[in-house]
């Protein structure tokens, strides 16, 4: 299998958000670089749901010290982090 690319993860994370947090309303999906915390769309519980989603989807384990905004606070940050970790 080729290395996971960030664009693929971004699509998967956005689909997860739309399906699970927005009842399918893709028009409300966050911009790829929008801060979850600043826009208020996804709170800390939502971030943990995203962490659980990427852990199970990509068979990775996110460490306590990796739970920082640089890794998790936008679709783009999360995808880049996951791609690097799974790659």
């Amino acid at each position, binding site marked *: 299998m080729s290395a996971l690319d960030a664009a693929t993860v971004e699509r998967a994370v956005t689909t997860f958000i739309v399906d699970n947090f927005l009842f399918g309303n893709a028009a409300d999906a966050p911009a790829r670089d929008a801060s979850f*915390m600043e826009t*208020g769309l996804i*709170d*800390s*519980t939502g*971030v*943990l*749901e995203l962490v*659980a989603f990427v852990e199970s989807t990509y068979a990775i384990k996110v460490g*306590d*010290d990796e*739970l*920082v*905004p640089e890794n*998790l606070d936008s679709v783009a940050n999360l995808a880049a982090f996951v791609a690097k970790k799974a790659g």
Partner: protein
Amino acid sequence: MALSWDVLALDYDAEADRIGGELRRIIAHECKRRGLVVALSGGIDSSCVAALATRALGKAKVFGIHMPERDSSAETIKLSRSVSDTFGFDSVLEEITPVLDGYGCYRRRDEAIRMVFPEFGPGWKSKIVLPGLTGGELNVYSLVVQKPDGTIEKQRLPLPAYLQIVAATNFKQRTRKTFEYYHADRLHYAVSGTPNRLEYDQGFFVKGGDGLADVKPIAHLYKTQVYAMARHLGVPVDICNRAPTTDTYSLAQGQDEFYFALPYREMDLCLWGKNHGVAPAEVAPTVGLTADQVERVYRDIDQKRATTRYLGLAPQLVGAIPEIKH
């Protein structure tokens, strides 16, 4: 210029008079009830509300309820009784442990703990904690357990376990509120809520539990002011000298490790500074932090306001009913 602690100073006699006037007006004219029920936890907030209510309404119009449960500290009932004894109002002890057992509160909580520590059982103790201000972490809870041999272990909580522990534990606050309304309905009294400003602002309460009330007499007072008011009104010193605790988990748990980023005194000043547009650099030297750390506390305040907004929302309607005004 460094922000002074004096910004939290109040004329406590005048403020107690003002709160008293508002309590009489709200209970008589808004609620149309004849007195006030106060659940006594042995903590500073409920003790202060009981003292204010007695001063405002007279001891014959205040009714206290003591509701310790299996995980409460052994001191709880002694402290809460010292409040009803000091102020001379009637009170009753309600044993809520059997009710909580009936709901499966302890069983459901322990089942969630075993998702993380499979061997958890009798003789173990537990609590959940936040990381605090040391790192740049998100507010992710960890579970701390103490084994029967005294050793302590800590693990990050996966979301389903965290949510179930909180959901099960919330039976405690909601059960207490059910008893408060039983006695309020029986006596035709109103029910008090006892949050201080930090708790009210930051959503540190259970919706339908301690968040439910007819009047919240000290929600505008910073915790530092609640302590000072309690001392002013003669709340027993053992209560005034005790550190804030949740008294909800079987391992002793400070409110600052469970919810707030800082001990209450420093948290009060940060919240006051933020509310009054004071720059972090002016708050920092007074509370013994760097400007960056105060900035992080400010962000945490905003984050908790956003995350807990749901807790304070009235039930949302999807069509206007202009005839009914709240």
